[in-house]
Structure formats: C-alpha cells, structure tokens
C-alpha cells in the first residue's frame, strides 16, 4: 500500500558541483563586496576617497560568481576587472585593506597613490586592473591568454566588458584576435541597461549581447546575471572549455546598474519604477540568500554571523589605514622607466 504520509522535507542537491562550504564562501564575497563599497561611499562623502566613486550595487552577483568559477591561488587563472567588478578582485584575493588604500591614494597602497579605484593589479593572485579607456583590456587579456597557450599552461583568462564598452574598436579587434588565435579566454559581457546615460538600443542593434558572439564564430550564452549560481555554472562551463583548448566563449550577464554612473550622477534618466523593481524583486544578494535558506542549504543565522564578521573585517581594515599618509610628493618622479630610474626634477624646484 502506498504511504500517504508527506515525505520528510529534503533539501535538493546543491547544483554545479558546489558544496555547502562553497555556497557560504560565495555569500561571504557577496557581502564583502557590498559592505566594502558602502564603506567606500562613506569615505567618498568624507572626501577621503577623492575623484569619483563607482558602485556595483545590484551587480555584485555576477562579479563574484564569474570570478569564483576560475582556478584561484598563486599563478592560476587571471581576470581583468572593470570599475564595477570589485567583487571579482576580492574573490581573487585582493585584500580589502589594499583596496581601501588604493581608493584613498595612500602611500602604502598598491599603486602608491598613482592610480585610482580598481586600476591596480597582482598578476600572481590573478587580477590585472583596467585603464579607463574602455575595451583596451580585451586585447591585453588576449595576450595573457595567448601566453598560456604558447607555454602550454592549463590556465584561463577572463575579461569583463560593459554593454557600452562593446562599442569600442578595441573590443572588436581584441576579441577577434583572441578567437582566431583560439586562446583560452572567457569574455563576460555585462548588460546592465546603461552606459552612463545611454541605453543599449543606442549602443547596438542586437537584442542580446550574446548574439554578437555569432559574428566572431564563438559560442555566446545569455544568463540571468542576478542568479548567482546560474552565472557560476555558465562561467564554469566556459572556463573549463577554454582550459581544454576549445578557445573563446562569450557570456552575457543580464543585470542592472542600480546607482548612477558614479556617485555624482542622480540618474534622473532612469525610470523610477524600473529601479524600484530591480531593488525589490531582483537583488542578487537577496535572491541568493532566499535560495540558500529555502533549500535549507544554509541557515539564516550562519549568514548573519558572516555579515557581522565582514563588517568587523572592514572596520578593522579601515581603521588600520584611514589615517595613513599620502605618498611623498617627489616619489612622483620614479618608475617611469626601469632605466633611467627617475624623471628629472625641474630646475626651478631647487631655487
């Protein structure tokens, strides 16, 4: 006789070959990204972060999940983040204190105050910061991936490009170059609805950025960019495919830029209801938490514990560096070349 009793509630298996520990770690990176950016915003308002400040609010999911699909550790895979990919750098092991120092132009920071925001690198950990000129990192990452291929190393490169950035010449040249050389490169195209104030329909005539892949003769996939595990799974597939020598893959992540282009931008051109919908119904962190808890993969209170830990970590890192000095003025002269070691100081400075 068939039992009518309801079966004991069983949590479904965790997808994509991940374990509970992985899920918790991903959550920690999501929280770390958001908390660190909130801190950077506060520091920006206190004029400690100077220049501009760009947020990834609402896009943290894809930054973290794509990077999490890479092989990490000394001299493994390498990615190149854009201004809204702070999360990917954290996943690759960029220490929050280094990021804080960099944003505040501290002498002890990774570029010794020469460069701003995510424009810094640690090739051993696996990240190569962008320059401002959009698209430029595509050919550079093609060259990094080319080297992996030439040396027969089982390593992969991953590079981000915004929906706006796909309009640049360097995007086209770099991608095409990578494709014909069949290098192990994964391109993450971030469809976040805006390029500064410009909507996608003024940027390109395809509906999905993944369609562009066809023109280069490579696979293109569109994923829900705020579904953390879906992004992870799609990226993992592309990364391992590249690692096996099958060449370039383009993944489009559909997401939404919830802040202005930078902190100065009041985003008056953004439909209010659209913004509200993404905040309320489609926040990547909220969605992820719901998924973890509803599937009983992780308990709510474990996540709360992580939140507290992250906050303490950011507090501690901030306290440790906020009062550090800016770089000494004449350190500006060294390091343009290895030889000569410093640019000449102008004659009148000695008067």
């Amino acid at each position: 006789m068939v039992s009518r009793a309801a079966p004991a509630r069983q949590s479904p298996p965790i997808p994509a070959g991940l374990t509970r520990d992985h899920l918790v770690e991903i959550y920690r990176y999501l929280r770390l990204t958001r908390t660190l950016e909130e801190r950077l915003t506060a520091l920006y308002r206190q004029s400690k972060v100077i220049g501009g400040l760009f947020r990834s609010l609402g896009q943290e999911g894809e930054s973290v999940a794509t990077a999490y699909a890479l092989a990490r550790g000394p001299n493994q895979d390498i990615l190149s983040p854009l201004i809204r990919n702070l999360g990917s750098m954290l996943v690759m092991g960029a220490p929050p204190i280094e990021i804080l120092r960099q944003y505040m132009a501290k002498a002890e920071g990774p570029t010794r105050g020469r460069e701003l925001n995510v424009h810094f690198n640690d090739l051993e950990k696996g990240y190569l910061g962008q320059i401002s000129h959009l698209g430029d990192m595509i050919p550079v990452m093609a060259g990094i991936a080319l080297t992996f291929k030439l040396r027969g190393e089982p390593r992969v490169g991953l590079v981000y490009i915004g929906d706006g950035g796909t309009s640049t010449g360097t995007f086209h040249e770099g991608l095409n170059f990578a494709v014909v050389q069949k290098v192990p490169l994964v391109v993450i195209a971030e469809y976040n609805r805006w390029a500064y104030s410009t909507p996608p329909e003024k940027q390109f005539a395809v509906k999905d950025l993944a369609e562009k892949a066809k023109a280069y003769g490579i696979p293109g996939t569109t994923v829900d960019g705020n579904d953390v595990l879906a992004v992870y799974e799609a990226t993992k597939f592309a990364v391992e495919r590249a690692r096996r020598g099958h060449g370039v893959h383009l993944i489009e992540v559909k997401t939404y830029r919830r802040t202005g282009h930078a902190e100065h931008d009041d985003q008056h051109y953004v439909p209010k209801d659209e913004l509200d919908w993404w905040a309320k119904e489609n926040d990547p962190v909220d969605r992820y938490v719901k998924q973890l808890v509803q599937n009983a993969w992780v308990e709510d209170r474990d996540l709360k514990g992580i939140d507290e830990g992250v906050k303490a970590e950011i507090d501690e890192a901030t306290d440790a560096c906020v009062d550090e000095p800016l770089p000494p003025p004449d350190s500006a002269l060294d390091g343009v070349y290895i030889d000569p070691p410093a640019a000449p100081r102008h004659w009148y400075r000695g008067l």
Partner: protein
Amino acid sequence: MADVTYLEALRQGLWEEMERDPRVFILGEDVGAYGGAFKVTEGFVKKFGEQRVIDTPISEAAIVGAAAGAAHMGMRPVAEMQFIDFISCAYDMLTNYVATARYRAGLATPIVVRGPCGGYVRGGPFHSQNPEAAFFHTPGLKIVYPATARDAKGLIKASIRDDDPVIYLEHKWLYRRIKEALPEGEEIVTPIGEARLAREGKDLSIVTYGATVWKSLEAAEQLAKDDGLSVEVLDLRTLLPMDDAAIMRSVQKTSKVLIVHEDTRTGGVAGEIAARINEQAFAWLDGPIMRVTAHDVPLPYAPTLEDFVLPQTDDIVKAARWLAAY
C-alpha cells in the same frame, strides 16, 4: 550684464551657432538626454531635437570619422569627446584621415572636436590629459585652447565657422571656476590664430595658454607686489596656427621669455615656441628662454603627487624671478 562661467559661455556659443546655422549638429557620448558629462549641452536635445544632438555609441573613432564624412557633405559637426583623454582612440582618424583630407584630396573637413582636458582635479592619469602636443605635430589640424569665458564662447563660434578641422580644448578646472560679464546681444567671435595680451609688462614675458594663464597672472601679480617686477602675460588662445607676431612683439619688448604650460615637457608645445623665438627674435634676447611645465611622468592621482607634477604658481614665480635677475 550677467556673469557667465567658462562652461556657460561655451554652452552659449554652441547654442547660438546651432540656432544660426542648420548645418551645425552635435554628436558624442551622453550629449543628448544627459546633456554631456559636464552639462555643456544641457537642454540642447530639447531645443534642437535628436537629429541634431546625437547620442552615440562609445566609439570615438566612429564619432570623428562620421563627423568627417558629414563635413565633406557640407555639414558642420561638433564632436564631443567625453573626456579629451579618449581622443587617443580617434588619433588615427584625426591624424591620417581628417588632417590630410584637404591637402591630399581637396576635401573640406570643417569639423570641431572638443572635450574637457587638464588636471588639478584629482582625475588620475586618464581624466586629466592635455593632448595638444600629439596633434600639434600634424599639419592640417588647428588647435585652440581658451582660457577665459569670453574666448570659450568666441573660439567655439570661430571653430564651428572655420573651414578646416579644429581641435577645441576646454579646461575642466576652469569650467566653473572663472566667470566674466559677457554682454548680451553682442556677437563674440574670437579669431583663430590671434593671441591675447592678458597682462602688459616690460621686464619679462610669460607665454602660456589654458589653465596656466591664470596661474601666470597670479604669479605676475605676486612678482609685482614682492619684487616690483613688471611681467607681461601672453595668452596664446590658438596653438595652431601660432601667433608668432604676437610672441615676437612681446619678446622685443621685454627681452626675457618664460614659457609655461601644463602639459609635460619633452616634446611639448613650449619647445616649438622656444625654437621660433630663437629663429625670429634671437637678437632681442637678454637671457635664455626658460620653461615651466609638468614633469615628464603620467599624471598621478594622489593630491600630493599631482601637485608636485603639475606646474604651480609658485614655480612660475621662482622661475620668473630667476630669469629676471639673469
């Protein structure tokens, strides 16, 4: 007569030319609905429509190239670079195509390529550049660089009306920092190729342009007060073609020249000015031609570093004092 900022003056100039001449149109990133990253074209799309204020993809080479094609057909395009640092992406179009079109093929290319440049704003290496020297070396391009609100307006109008391609460099540090009363109803057009005597003097000439005009004026004031020196300040306004006559007039008067620019030193415009003085007014010189410029490094982000690298008022004072005593 209302006080008008440098930025507002530029905006007025663009607006008036759009009203005057239906061939004029604007293209660039975020120039329409957003009104430009610095709001230079705020309100333009509402008044002139999307046909004449075109939001483009992030494609500087295409922006400049398309402007060139339209100009061949009799249009008067004004292309905005969101920051002038991105003009490097259109370097090929400008130097190979646009600059040579008239000489090589008899094609008129009356375009204006404009954008915010310059430092002193903590913008880091890619939002602070002064790219004039990269184009100064290319015959076929004109380069203007206003320092005052009046010239911001007068030079944009002259650039749009000019029958050759003009790179119009506007300094973002000046955008809202300086103001000037501009008479309403008066048509202000600053002729391309004419320098402006910003301050008269007889002991020493400072030849400069852009933001360092203001730093030079500040230095001149200080030198008058502290040293009793009479310093002349010449604001070039146009870099190409350069107003040699105005430079030589000043040299003949003071016999001492300090050239000041914000751009880096090696290969900078000051070297060319010095060579011209050497060739055309050597006999009048009573001292070496000296330069105050940025140091030869990419412009760093930290305030301590940026301030060190860029020329400051104090540098001009010291250098001028030294030269006056020579």
